[in-house]
Protein backbone atom coordinates (compact mmCIF):
# COMPACT_ATOMS: atom_id res chain seq x y z
CA UNK A 1 0.00 0.00 0.00
CA UNK A 2 1.31 3.45 -0.86
CA UNK A 3 2.30 5.79 1.92
CA UNK A 4 0.17 8.84 2.59
CA UNK A 5 2.03 11.92 1.29
CA UNK A 6 -0.36 14.85 1.65
CA UNK A 7 2.46 17.36 1.14
CA UNK A 8 3.09 16.80 -2.58
CA UNK A 9 0.67 19.46 -3.81
CA UNK A 10 1.87 22.57 -1.95
CA UNK A 11 2.68 25.19 -4.62
CA UNK A 12 6.34 26.15 -5.03
CA UNK A 13 7.41 23.71 -2.31
CA UNK A 14 9.39 20.45 -2.22
CA UNK A 15 9.21 18.48 0.99
CA UNK A 16 12.44 16.69 1.82
CA UNK A 17 11.29 13.16 2.57
CA UNK A 18 13.03 9.78 2.39
CA UNK A 19 12.57 9.65 -1.39
CA UNK A 20 14.21 13.06 -1.94
CA UNK A 21 16.86 12.19 0.61
CA UNK A 22 17.83 9.05 -1.27
CA UNK A 23 17.96 10.93 -4.55
CA UNK A 24 20.09 13.71 -3.09
CA UNK A 25 22.32 11.70 -0.79
CA UNK A 26 25.68 12.54 -2.40
CA UNK A 27 24.69 16.09 -3.26
CA UNK A 28 23.86 16.74 0.38
CA UNK A 29 26.92 14.91 1.68
CA UNK A 30 29.12 16.99 -0.63
CA UNK A 31 27.52 20.07 0.98
CA UNK A 32 28.45 18.76 4.44
CA UNK A 33 32.10 18.67 3.39
CA UNK A 34 31.98 22.47 3.07
CA UNK A 35 31.79 22.78 6.85
CA UNK A 36 35.58 22.50 6.89
CA UNK A 37 37.55 25.62 5.92
CA UNK A 38 40.24 23.77 3.86
CA UNK A 39 37.48 22.12 1.80
CA UNK A 40 35.81 25.48 1.21
CA UNK A 41 39.13 26.83 -0.07
CA UNK A 42 39.61 23.90 -2.44
CA UNK A 43 36.03 24.21 -3.71
CA UNK A 44 36.43 27.94 -4.34
CA UNK A 45 39.72 27.36 -6.14
CA UNK A 46 38.26 24.79 -8.57
CA UNK A 47 34.60 23.92 -8.04
CA UNK A 48 34.40 21.55 -10.98
CA UNK A 49 37.39 19.48 -9.89
CA UNK A 50 36.09 19.38 -6.32
CA UNK A 51 32.67 18.16 -7.47
CA UNK A 52 34.28 15.45 -9.59
CA UNK A 53 35.58 13.85 -6.39
CA UNK A 54 31.96 13.05 -5.46
CA UNK A 55 29.72 10.33 -6.95
CA UNK A 56 27.07 12.90 -7.87
CA UNK A 57 25.00 12.92 -11.07
CA UNK A 58 25.96 15.37 -13.80
CA UNK A 59 22.62 17.17 -13.26
CA UNK A 60 23.52 17.66 -9.59
CA UNK A 61 26.97 18.98 -10.43
CA UNK A 62 25.58 21.35 -13.08
CA UNK A 63 22.98 22.69 -10.64
CA UNK A 64 25.71 23.40 -8.06
CA UNK A 65 27.96 25.08 -10.64
CA UNK A 66 25.02 27.25 -11.75
CA UNK A 67 24.37 28.07 -8.05
CA UNK A 68 20.72 27.37 -8.87
CA UNK A 69 19.08 26.23 -5.66
CA UNK A 70 15.74 25.35 -7.27
CA UNK A 71 17.55 22.91 -9.53
CA UNK A 72 19.57 21.58 -6.59
CA UNK A 73 16.33 20.91 -4.70
CA UNK A 74 14.81 19.19 -7.73
CA UNK A 75 17.88 16.91 -7.72
CA UNK A 76 17.31 15.92 -4.09
CA UNK A 77 19.07 18.73 -2.24
CA UNK A 78 17.80 20.03 1.08
CA UNK A 79 18.06 23.73 1.85
CA UNK A 80 19.92 23.28 5.16
CA UNK A 81 22.60 21.28 3.36
CA UNK A 82 22.62 23.55 0.29
CA UNK A 83 23.05 26.57 2.55
CA UNK A 84 26.66 25.51 3.01
CA UNK A 85 27.31 26.23 -0.68
CA UNK A 86 25.92 29.72 -0.21
CA UNK A 87 27.92 30.17 2.98
CA UNK A 88 31.07 29.19 1.10
CA UNK A 89 30.37 32.03 -1.35
CA UNK A 90 29.65 34.40 1.56
CA UNK A 91 25.90 34.54 0.95
CA UNK A 92 23.27 34.92 3.67
CA UNK A 93 20.18 32.74 4.04
CA UNK A 94 18.09 35.66 2.82
CA UNK A 95 20.16 35.95 -0.36
CA UNK A 96 19.82 32.21 -0.92
CA UNK A 97 16.06 32.08 -0.27
CA UNK A 98 15.45 35.11 -2.46
CA UNK A 99 17.43 33.58 -5.32
CA UNK A 100 14.77 30.88 -5.70
CA UNK A 101 11.99 33.39 -6.45
CA UNK A 102 13.32 35.28 -9.45
CA UNK A 103 13.42 38.46 -7.38
CA UNK A 104 16.51 40.59 -6.96
CA UNK A 105 18.04 40.71 -3.50
CA UNK A 106 16.47 44.12 -2.94
CA UNK A 107 13.01 43.07 -4.17
CA UNK A 108 13.00 40.04 -1.88
CA UNK A 109 14.24 42.01 1.12
CA UNK A 110 11.53 44.62 0.54
CA UNK A 111 8.87 41.89 0.36
CA UNK A 112 10.03 40.56 3.73
CA UNK A 113 10.07 44.01 5.35
CA UNK A 114 6.54 44.56 4.05
CA UNK A 115 5.39 41.45 5.96
CA UNK A 116 6.55 38.60 3.76
CA UNK A 117 4.76 36.56 1.12
CA UNK A 118 1.05 36.18 1.74
CA UNK A 119 -0.35 32.68 2.09
CA UNK A 120 -3.46 33.77 0.17
CA UNK A 121 -3.55 32.01 -3.18
CA UNK A 122 -0.49 29.96 -2.24
CA UNK A 123 -2.06 27.09 -0.32
CA UNK A 124 -3.25 24.85 -3.14
CA UNK A 125 -2.56 24.26 -6.85
CA UNK A 126 -4.84 26.17 -9.20
CA UNK A 127 -5.01 29.30 -7.06
CA UNK A 128 -3.57 32.61 -8.18
CA UNK A 129 -0.93 33.51 -5.55
CA UNK A 130 2.59 34.74 -6.22
CA UNK A 131 4.22 31.31 -5.77
CA UNK A 132 2.04 29.64 -8.44
CA UNK A 133 3.69 28.43 -11.67
CA UNK A 134 1.93 31.05 -13.84
CA UNK A 135 3.70 33.83 -11.90
CA UNK A 136 7.30 32.62 -12.25
CA UNK A 137 9.78 34.21 -12.22
CA UNK A 138 8.44 36.78 -9.81
CA UNK A 139 10.89 39.62 -10.05
CA UNK A 140 13.49 41.22 -12.25
CA UNK A 141 16.53 39.14 -11.32
CA UNK A 142 18.69 38.78 -14.40
CA UNK A 143 19.51 35.10 -13.82
CA UNK A 144 18.45 32.06 -11.86
CA UNK A 145 20.79 31.24 -9.00
CA UNK A 146 22.64 33.33 -6.45
Amino acid at each position, binding site marked *: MALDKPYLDVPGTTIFDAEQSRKGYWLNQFCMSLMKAPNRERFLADAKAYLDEWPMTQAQKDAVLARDLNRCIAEGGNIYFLAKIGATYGKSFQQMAGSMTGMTEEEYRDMM*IAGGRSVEGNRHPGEDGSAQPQHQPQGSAAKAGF
Partner: protein
Amino acid sequence: MARITASVYTSHVPAIGAALDLGKTHEPYWQKVFSGYEYSKQWLRETKPDVIFLVYNDHATAFSLDLIPTFAIGTAAQYQPADEGWGPRPVPTVMGHPDLAAHIAQSVIQDDFDLTIVNKMDVDHGLTVPLSLMCGQQDKDSGAWPCPVIPFAVNVVQYPVPSGRRCFNLGRAIRKAVESYDEPLNVQIWGTGGMSHQLQGPRAGLINAEWDKRFLDRLIAEPEALAQVPHIDYVREAGSEGIELVMWLIARGAMSDHAPAVKHRFYHVPASNTAVGHLILENT
Protein backbone atom coordinates in the same frame (compact mmCIF):
# COMPACT_ATOMS: atom_id res chain seq x y z
CA MET B 1 13.75 17.35 43.97
CA ALA B 2 14.34 19.20 40.70
CA ARG B 3 11.47 21.02 39.08
CA ILE B 4 10.63 22.79 35.84
CA THR B 5 9.72 26.34 36.80
CA ALA B 6 9.31 28.03 33.46
CA SER B 7 9.40 27.64 29.69
CA VAL B 8 10.75 29.95 27.03
CA TYR B 9 9.80 29.90 23.34
CA THR B 10 11.76 31.67 20.66
CA SER B 11 12.72 31.62 17.00
CA HIS B 12 16.37 30.80 16.29
CA VAL B 13 17.08 32.59 12.99
CA PRO B 14 20.80 32.35 11.98
CA ALA B 15 20.83 35.99 10.78
CA ILE B 16 20.12 37.06 14.38
CA GLY B 17 23.39 35.41 15.38
CA ALA B 18 25.16 37.09 12.49
CA ALA B 19 23.71 40.49 13.45
CA LEU B 20 25.08 40.04 16.99
CA ASP B 21 28.44 38.68 15.88
CA LEU B 22 28.97 41.38 13.24
CA GLY B 23 27.93 44.27 15.48
CA LYS B 24 24.70 45.17 13.65
CA THR B 25 22.47 45.26 16.74
CA HIS B 26 22.01 49.04 16.59
CA GLU B 27 20.66 49.05 13.05
CA PRO B 28 16.91 49.90 13.10
CA TYR B 29 16.10 46.65 11.29
CA TRP B 30 17.63 44.59 14.12
CA GLN B 31 16.63 46.92 16.95
CA LYS B 32 13.02 45.91 16.33
CA VAL B 33 13.97 42.26 16.84
CA PHE B 34 16.20 42.74 19.88
CA SER B 35 13.72 45.08 21.60
CA GLY B 36 11.52 42.03 22.11
CA TYR B 37 14.18 40.40 24.29
CA GLU B 38 15.06 43.26 26.66
CA TYR B 39 12.56 42.07 29.25
CA SER B 40 13.66 38.47 28.72
CA LYS B 41 17.32 39.13 29.54
CA GLN B 42 16.31 40.79 32.81
CA TRP B 43 13.87 37.97 33.56
CA LEU B 44 16.57 35.35 33.01
CA ARG B 45 18.99 37.15 35.34
CA GLU B 46 16.31 37.23 38.02
CA THR B 47 15.00 33.69 37.69
CA LYS B 48 18.52 32.18 37.78
CA PRO B 49 17.96 28.70 36.32
CA ASP B 50 20.39 25.97 37.41
CA VAL B 51 19.95 24.11 34.13
CA ILE B 52 18.35 24.91 30.77
CA PHE B 53 16.86 22.00 28.83
CA LEU B 54 17.04 23.39 25.30
CA VAL B 55 14.90 21.86 22.56
CA TYR B 56 16.15 22.78 19.09
CA ASN B 57 16.85 21.27 15.72
CA ASP B 58 20.19 20.56 14.16
CA HIS B 59 20.39 22.10 10.66
CA ALA B 60 22.55 19.50 8.89
CA THR B 61 25.41 20.24 11.25
CA ALA B 62 26.01 17.47 13.80
CA PHE B 63 23.73 15.12 11.86
CA SER B 64 24.31 14.67 8.13
CA LEU B 65 22.34 12.17 6.06
CA ASP B 66 24.48 9.44 7.64
CA LEU B 67 22.43 9.52 10.80
CA ILE B 68 19.02 11.10 11.40
CA PRO B 69 17.82 10.66 14.98
CA THR B 70 14.26 11.78 15.63
CA PHE B 71 15.02 12.76 19.24
CA ALA B 72 18.61 13.13 20.48
CA ILE B 73 19.63 14.12 24.01
CA GLY B 74 23.09 15.53 24.70
CA THR B 75 24.76 13.87 27.68
CA ALA B 76 28.23 15.36 27.14
CA ALA B 77 30.14 17.65 29.50
CA GLN B 78 30.49 20.34 26.85
CA TYR B 79 29.60 21.28 23.27
CA GLN B 80 31.52 23.48 20.84
CA PRO B 81 29.78 26.02 18.59
CA ALA B 82 29.77 24.50 15.09
CA ASP B 83 31.25 25.75 11.84
CA GLU B 84 28.12 25.78 9.65
CA GLY B 85 29.99 27.07 6.62
CA TRP B 86 30.51 30.69 7.71
CA GLY B 87 33.03 29.73 10.43
CA PRO B 88 32.00 29.01 14.06
CA ARG B 89 30.04 31.71 15.91
CA PRO B 90 32.38 33.54 18.33
CA VAL B 91 30.42 32.52 21.42
CA PRO B 92 31.38 30.57 24.57
CA THR B 93 31.53 26.79 24.76
CA VAL B 94 28.22 25.36 25.96
CA MET B 95 28.62 23.44 29.21
CA GLY B 96 26.38 20.41 29.63
CA HIS B 97 24.87 18.69 32.65
CA PRO B 98 25.77 15.03 32.05
CA ASP B 99 24.24 13.76 35.28
CA LEU B 100 20.78 15.27 34.85
CA ALA B 101 20.86 14.50 31.11
CA ALA B 102 21.61 10.83 31.75
CA HIS B 103 18.88 10.74 34.40
CA ILE B 104 16.34 12.21 31.97
CA ALA B 105 17.44 9.81 29.21
CA GLN B 106 16.97 6.81 31.47
CA SER B 107 13.59 7.94 32.74
CA VAL B 108 12.19 8.99 29.36
CA ILE B 109 13.36 5.84 27.56
CA GLN B 110 11.74 3.72 30.27
CA ASP B 111 8.63 5.78 29.57
CA ASP B 112 8.62 4.46 25.96
CA PHE B 113 10.31 7.40 24.17
CA ASP B 114 13.33 5.97 22.38
CA LEU B 115 15.91 8.73 22.57
CA THR B 116 19.29 8.71 20.86
CA ILE B 117 22.06 9.46 23.34
CA VAL B 118 24.77 11.80 22.11
CA ASN B 119 28.11 12.04 23.91
CA LYS B 120 29.87 14.14 21.30
CA MET B 121 28.47 16.83 19.02
CA ASP B 122 28.88 20.43 17.99
CA VAL B 123 25.87 22.72 18.37
CA ASP B 124 24.65 25.07 15.64
CA HIS B 125 22.67 28.31 15.53
CA GLY B 126 19.52 26.44 16.56
CA LEU B 127 20.96 26.22 20.05
CA THR B 128 23.33 29.20 20.28
CA VAL B 129 21.02 31.91 18.88
CA PRO B 130 18.37 31.41 21.60
CA LEU B 131 21.14 31.57 24.22
CA SER B 132 22.45 34.82 22.71
CA LEU B 133 18.95 36.32 22.59
CA MET B 134 18.18 35.44 26.20
CA CYS B 135 21.62 36.04 27.74
CA GLY B 136 22.89 38.89 25.59
CA GLN B 137 26.15 38.88 23.70
CA GLN B 138 28.89 36.82 25.33
CA ASP B 139 32.55 36.97 24.43
CA LYS B 140 33.96 33.67 23.20
CA ASP B 141 36.75 33.63 25.81
CA SER B 142 35.90 36.02 28.63
CA GLY B 143 32.12 35.44 28.53
CA ALA B 144 30.04 32.46 29.65
CA TRP B 145 26.47 31.19 29.44
CA PRO B 146 24.71 31.54 32.80
CA CYS B 147 24.25 27.84 33.53
CA PRO B 148 24.66 24.32 32.11
CA VAL B 149 22.53 23.42 29.10
CA ILE B 150 21.13 20.06 28.02
CA PRO B 151 20.79 20.08 24.22
CA PHE B 152 17.79 18.18 22.91
CA ALA B 153 17.78 17.90 19.11
CA VAL B 154 14.62 17.06 17.15
CA ASN B 155 14.62 16.00 13.51
CA VAL B 156 12.57 18.52 11.56
CA VAL B 157 14.77 18.34 8.45
CA GLN B 158 13.80 15.02 6.82
CA TYR B 159 10.17 14.00 6.73
CA PRO B 160 8.40 12.57 8.52
CA VAL B 161 9.19 14.65 11.59
CA PRO B 162 7.57 13.70 14.92
CA SER B 163 3.92 14.68 15.30
CA GLY B 164 2.78 17.50 17.54
CA ARG B 165 1.04 14.96 19.74
CA ARG B 166 4.21 12.92 20.13
CA CYS B 167 6.17 16.05 21.02
CA PHE B 168 3.61 17.17 23.60
CA ASN B 169 3.58 13.76 25.29
CA LEU B 170 7.37 13.63 25.25
CA GLY B 171 7.33 16.94 27.11
CA ARG B 172 5.19 15.32 29.78
CA ALA B 173 7.69 12.47 30.12
CA ILE B 174 10.53 14.99 30.47
CA ARG B 175 8.62 16.77 33.24
CA LYS B 176 8.22 13.48 35.10
CA ALA B 177 11.90 12.71 34.63
CA VAL B 178 13.05 16.07 36.00
CA GLU B 179 10.75 15.75 39.00
CA SER B 180 12.33 12.43 39.93
CA TYR B 181 15.84 13.91 40.14
CA ASP B 182 16.93 14.26 43.76
CA GLU B 183 18.93 17.46 43.67
CA PRO B 184 16.72 20.58 44.09
CA LEU B 185 17.47 22.16 40.71
CA ASN B 186 15.61 25.05 39.11
CA VAL B 187 15.18 23.81 35.53
CA GLN B 188 13.87 25.81 32.59
CA ILE B 189 12.81 24.23 29.32
CA TRP B 190 13.12 26.18 26.10
CA GLY B 191 11.38 25.36 22.83
CA THR B 192 12.90 27.00 19.78
CA GLY B 193 12.46 27.44 16.01
CA GLY B 194 9.71 28.90 13.85
CA MET B 195 7.51 30.80 13.55
CA SER B 196 6.15 30.90 10.00
CA HIS B 197 8.86 30.77 7.36
CA GLN B 198 9.81 29.04 4.15
CA LEU B 199 13.38 28.97 2.89
CA GLN B 200 12.93 27.13 -0.39
CA GLY B 201 11.39 27.31 -3.83
CA PRO B 202 9.20 29.96 -5.46
CA ARG B 203 7.16 30.10 -2.23
CA ALA B 204 10.19 31.25 -0.18
CA GLY B 205 9.45 34.16 2.12
CA LEU B 206 6.00 32.97 3.16
CA ILE B 207 4.78 34.53 6.42
CA ASN B 208 1.39 33.98 8.06
CA ALA B 209 1.07 36.33 11.01
CA GLU B 210 -2.55 35.45 11.65
CA TRP B 211 -1.74 31.74 11.93
CA ASP B 212 1.29 32.44 14.13
CA LYS B 213 -0.67 34.59 16.58
CA ARG B 214 -3.37 31.96 16.83
CA PHE B 215 -0.63 29.38 17.50
CA LEU B 216 0.67 31.51 20.38
CA ASP B 217 -2.86 31.90 21.81
CA ARG B 218 -3.50 28.17 21.65
CA LEU B 219 -0.05 27.24 22.96
CA ILE B 220 -0.89 29.21 26.09
CA ALA B 221 -4.52 28.22 26.51
CA GLU B 222 -5.11 24.81 24.89
CA PRO B 223 -1.79 23.13 24.08
CA GLU B 224 -3.19 19.61 24.05
CA ALA B 225 -5.71 20.52 21.34
CA LEU B 226 -3.00 22.41 19.42
CA ALA B 227 -0.86 19.27 19.51
CA GLN B 228 -3.46 17.53 17.29
CA VAL B 229 -2.73 19.82 14.32
CA PRO B 230 -1.29 17.67 11.48
CA HIS B 231 2.02 18.43 9.75
CA ILE B 232 0.38 19.43 6.49
CA ASP B 233 -1.37 22.35 8.19
CA TYR B 234 1.97 23.74 9.34
CA VAL B 235 3.44 23.37 5.84
CA ARG B 236 0.48 24.85 3.98
CA GLU B 237 -0.21 27.67 6.42
CA ALA B 238 3.17 28.50 7.99
CA GLY B 239 5.66 27.43 5.30
CA SER B 240 7.78 24.33 4.91
CA GLU B 241 10.18 25.39 7.67
CA GLY B 242 7.30 26.51 9.93
CA ILE B 243 7.16 22.83 10.91
CA GLU B 244 9.87 23.66 13.47
CA LEU B 245 7.03 24.85 15.70
CA VAL B 246 6.28 21.26 16.76
CA MET B 247 9.33 21.63 19.00
CA TRP B 248 7.52 24.27 21.06
CA LEU B 249 5.03 21.57 22.05
CA ILE B 250 7.77 19.59 23.81
CA ALA B 251 8.50 22.55 26.08
CA ARG B 252 4.78 23.20 26.61
CA GLY B 253 4.12 19.56 27.48
CA ALA B 254 6.79 19.77 30.17
CA MET B 255 4.85 22.51 31.98
CA SER B 256 2.37 21.72 34.75
CA ASP B 257 -1.27 21.02 33.90
CA HIS B 258 -2.36 24.29 35.54
CA ALA B 259 -2.71 27.44 33.45
CA PRO B 260 0.70 29.15 33.24
CA ALA B 261 1.46 32.79 33.97
CA VAL B 262 2.29 34.62 30.74
CA LYS B 263 5.32 36.72 31.65
CA HIS B 264 6.16 37.98 28.18
CA ARG B 265 4.90 37.81 24.60
CA PHE B 266 6.50 39.26 21.47
CA TYR B 267 5.93 38.92 17.74
CA HIS B 268 7.73 40.63 14.90
CA VAL B 269 8.12 40.28 11.12
CA PRO B 270 10.76 39.91 9.76
CA ALA B 271 14.14 38.69 10.87
CA SER B 272 15.65 37.75 7.53
CA ASN B 273 13.13 35.22 6.10
CA THR B 274 11.29 34.53 9.32
CA ALA B 275 8.53 35.64 11.68
CA VAL B 276 10.00 35.99 15.16
CA GLY B 277 7.81 34.74 18.00
CA HIS B 278 8.72 34.72 21.66
CA LEU B 279 6.89 33.70 24.83
CA ILE B 280 7.84 33.23 28.46
CA LEU B 281 5.52 31.09 30.59
CA GLU B 282 5.95 30.37 34.28
CA ASN B 283 4.39 27.53 36.21
CA THR B 284 1.92 28.76 38.78
